[in-house]
């Protein structure tokens, strides 16, 4: 069943077209990855899906509802959110307050505590630092906090933006192992990563973006890494068309 369906969307920054007729599809229970170099338009696309960037054309459908023009806060309440890269933590708030913000829409404080407990089990490091300000965290810890906060909203579909940007390989490995646990809980994932082989290894389906377009897509297991790399950098791409 298709959970998220993005159809022919276009996003502009002023006169500059950042996203050109992009369509992607995420099925329930899958892990889908979106691969692309810096400036390919991945984050712009994610922000458009979440209602942060305005789309000029096309549609976004989530669980059968048209959310193209919806406010971000409403989209989150439907069960779709993104974990922005770690620099978007609430710097002047404690780790615990950061996480509790994730449960903002949950009105029961007992339930908020219970969700907090689940996140602490997933990322024990966050429990240790619960009372510290987010501004003192390292890059990897921030990434975990960002994912933890997004999970606190209890999303049906979670988008992880730039999941490994600037992180040490050990940390990336740890984050991906938590990602597996998250999928086991029934959360569908759309993961953005710049590392081609890692993305293909961890996902079921993959899209490659270049200059605001989807230039390649397919089952991750069927994809040839060299071809993906070529598409990623735009090498010989015109020849294939």
């Amino acid at each position, binding site marked *: 069943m298709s959970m998220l369906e993005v159809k022919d969307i276009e996003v502009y920054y002023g006169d500059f077209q950042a996203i050109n007729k992009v369509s992607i599809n995420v099925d329930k229970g899958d892990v889908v990855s979106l691969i692309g170099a810096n400036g390919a338009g991945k984050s712009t696309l994610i922000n458009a899906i*979440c209602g*942060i960037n305005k789309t000029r054309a096309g549609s976004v459908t989530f669980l059968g509802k048209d959310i193209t023009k919806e*406010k*971000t*806060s*409403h989209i*989150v*309440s439907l069960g779709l*959110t*993104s974990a*922005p890269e770690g620099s*978007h*933590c*609430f*710097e*002047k*708030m404690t780790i615990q*307050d950061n996480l*509790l*913000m*994730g449960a*903002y*829409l949950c*009105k029961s*404080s007992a339930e908020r505590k219970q969700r907090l407990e689940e996140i602490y089990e997933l990322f024990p490091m966050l429990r240790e630092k619960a009372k510290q*300000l987010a*501004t003192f965290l390292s890059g990897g810890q921030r990434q975990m906090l960002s994912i933890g*906060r*997004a999970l*606190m*909203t209890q999303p049906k579909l979670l988008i992880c933006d730039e999941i490994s940007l600037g992180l040490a390989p050990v940390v990336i490995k740890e984050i991906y192992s938590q990602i597996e646990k998250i999928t086991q809980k029934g959360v569908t994932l759309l993961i953005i990563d710049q590392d081609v082989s890692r993305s293909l290894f961890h996902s079921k389906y993959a899209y490659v973006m270049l200059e605001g377009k989807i230039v390649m897509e397919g089952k991750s297991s069927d994809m040839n890494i060299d071809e993906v790399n070529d598409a990623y950098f735009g090498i010989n791409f015109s020849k294939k068309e």
Partner: protein
Amino acid sequence: MLQYLVQGILLGGLYAIIGIGMSLVFGIMRLTNLAHGDLMILSSYTALTFCELLGGNLILAAILTIITMIIVGFFIQGFLLNNILDKGSEPALLVTFGVSVFLANLLHKIFSADYRGLANSLSNTKVISTPAVSISAMYLFSFLVAILLITGLHLVMQYTNFGRSIRATSDNAMAASLTGVNTKKTYIYAMMLSMGVTAVSGVLIGCTYTFNASVGSSYLIIAFGVVVIGGMGSLVGTLVGGIVLGVAQLLGSYFFGSGVQMLVAYVVLLIVLATRPNGLFARGARK
């Protein structure tokens, strides 16, 4: 000297209340509300009008003023500022300047340029009356209200879901929206809160000093001083900022004469700005 010191500290409480409203708005929207002083004087006049209509019941008039100003806050944010904040905070700054000019002239038109005051029993009562120190009950009352407001707001900000959402929006509006916060609504709530506190300050100022339509801008500068000294967006800092400014003003008056008291206060402000540009209580390092 002791008299000036004590009175300066108590005056600081009043200044802190003036500063809180401005600090809230700045902390959350990064917007300097240039109409803050005029909105405060608007509250003074609103209280005066209610008081006259109610036959001198100041407490009821104050409550009605707070409610009125909260509604005013809803309209200012919902219909004027929210639409324009998308384009950055500079255009919104100009809008608040426009509101300031509009209000000052409107109040002039309605109430003329005569100085008015809110009659009350506290300002003529002395709580302490010795040869060395004499404290007016009004000053003490303002100071206590300031402590109460700051403590109350601090608790709300730290420990409630609503307070957290305000802090989160002020920290990173995009990330806040991804947790389900409707940031536009949060801005409206923040402005309503700010206007409610501003109404309190307007009533207290009206009880302590006389006012007319054109004094708003001088209170804007005081609010600015309080917030800059204390650190923008910090509640405890607001109280400290108010006290620093109040004490500087009154000690200035003691040493150099009342003619230059505000000059001394502003020199202190400049010294703080030069040495601690983020204010004495700026929280967390900004990147």
